[in-house]
């Protein structure tokens, strides 16, 4: 389990002291402005060079913004399709990712919480926001004990904000994103208060590693019926195209919803790649 670094481009409003920029005056990390000494009586921060530039002359003090902690949340898709086993067990992979998020948040001094949803909100995998370092193991054991039985979708995704704070938080949305566009758009609209990082978990077994030839009858894991598929190179190519188109469509949807571009996880989660992704696109 490796931690990744994340950076936010917005300023949080209060909470506990941490590592993220805020609009709260204080501390000595992020320079804010020069103010007269009498306005902020802190002789340690007198700036002589700024004072000499003032007309009429007065002593100026540098003020700073405080760095506070933020709340990081993992929102986990618990529809049955997450139980897919290809090159990797998707649920196992999402457990690893949630653990990495929790560990990164705790290391960063932020709080971590977890919300899970299938057709309803899953309180057995709910983890309220906390600074406890043990939350990393707690959430992992909760997620490992999950049993998938009935095929379920993810109809409760638009309702996850019921369990999220109203204050802007960093929300990692972990899913395979096979839900309908209307549901996804609505969920994203309900999450506009937050800084959402979509993490798309796909498996190469469902895309590239289908057999070249053969007749297979596939069963939808979320209970949307069965389909006869006579695999042949042309159809395989069409399936790959469909995934490619889905990837572009998802990026487009997230962009138009004003949130970060998605992070695609194929088979394996690399924390370095996640760090890179978080730094490249640090949100609005």
């Amino acid at each position: 389990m490796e931690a990744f670094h994340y950076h936010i481009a917005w300023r949080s409003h209060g909470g506990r002291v941490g590592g993220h920029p805020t609009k709260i005056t204080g501390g000595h990390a992020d320079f804010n402005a020069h103010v007269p000494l009498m306005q902020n009586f802190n002789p340690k921060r007198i700036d002589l060079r700024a004072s000499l530039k003032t007309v009429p002359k007065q002593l100026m003090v540098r003020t700073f913004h405080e760095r506070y902690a933020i709340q990081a949340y993992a929102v986990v898709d618990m529809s049955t399709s997450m139980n897919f086993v290809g090159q990797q067990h998707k649920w196992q992979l999402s457990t690893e990712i949630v653990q990495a998020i929790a560990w990164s948040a705790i290391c960063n001094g932020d709080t971590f919480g977890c919300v899970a949803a299938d057709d309803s909100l899953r309180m057995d995998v709910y983890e309220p926001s906390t600074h406890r370092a043990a939350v990393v193991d707690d959430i992992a054991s909760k997620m490992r004990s999950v049993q998938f039985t009935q095929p379920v979708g993810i109809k409760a995704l638009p309702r996850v904000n019921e369990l999220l704070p109203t204050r802007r938080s960093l929300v990692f949305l972990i899913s395979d994103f096979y839900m309908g566009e209307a549901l996804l758009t609505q969920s994203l609209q309900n999450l506009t208060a937050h800084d959402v990082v979509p993490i798309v978990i796909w498996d190469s077994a469902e895309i590239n590693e289908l057999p070249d030839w053969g007749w297979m009858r596939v069963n939808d894991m979320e209970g949307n019926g069965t389909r006869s598929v006579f695999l042949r190179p042309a159809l395989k190519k069409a399936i790959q195209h469909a995934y490619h188109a889905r990837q572009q469509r998802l990026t487009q949807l997230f962009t138009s919803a004003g949130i970060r571009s998605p992070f695609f996880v194929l088979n394996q989660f690399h924390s370095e790649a996640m760090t890179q992704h978080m730094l490249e696109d640090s949100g609005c």
Partner: protein
Amino acid sequence: MLGLLNELRCHEVWPLYFLPLALLPWWIKAEAQFQYPSISMIPHDPFSIWVERIWRISATLLITSLLLAMCKPYLAEQKVDRYGNGAHIMVVLDRSGSMNDDFADRPEQGSASKMAAARRVLTEFTENSRQDLIGMITFSTSPMLVAALGNDRKAVLSGLSATEAGGMGFTAVDKGLAMALDFFEGKPVTGSRVVLLVSDGAAHLDAKTQDFLRNGFVRQQASLFWIYLRSKNGASLNEKLAEDDDQAAPEYALNQYFQTLGVPYQAYMAEDPSQVKAAMQSIAKLKNKPVKYQEVIARKDIGYLCYMTALLATVVMFGLYLTEVRTWRINTIGK
């Protein structure tokens, strides 16, 4: 084609009660299925859908055709009207003992008996007259039916080959002719009727029999051809013996009588096998008239069609079974 459907029959009906079983393939879902996260990601593919449909249709076809085969279906016996050029020919063949002799009166090693000559020529005649209706009667002391009037060539040919057993007894021409005429009785006159008498002798007919036969020939409008297989020193048909004795030379008397029948009559005197052949050829020319007759087609078992269909459906299903994907690349689970 619809006519054929009318002739469709079956032995058993009870398997048809199980026909609803044919719907079974459209209900069952117990197939090997792979779990796929979202089938909405798989593009719509009509070919795959048809593969599935063909599989289900084959299964239905298999069940249906096996059930139909269990009904033991058959096409009932049919009568088909046929038209052709030819005649209705009743061959009346002499099988008396004298037919075993050759034309030279004394059987010699390697020479053809009269019977053999007649047989060979008649066989050839039968084989070549495809559109004639042919029947055959052999007679010696009493007549014997070999083949009824029809287009069953095989029966006539086997009757002819049976004459190899050799002849015996006397020559009862009248009974043979009467029996031959009987076969024309009550049947529509759809072609010229011919009675072909092949004999090497004759018998005396009394007045009553003569009248009876005359009536018969006139009523049936049948013409008569007589191939007289004459031995070297046999009686001639045309030369009256000096003694004026019908009993001594019945052939001449019979020829005279046949000429009074009032129906077309022709006699051929054959004194060696080649003449027999020539006589037959001239008869073949005479008898060409349009003929209408009914051919009987034997009932036909069509269960094999059902089994063929079932086999075909099985082959299709087995082929699709062979193309089925057994393993998907998920061999690295739990790594």
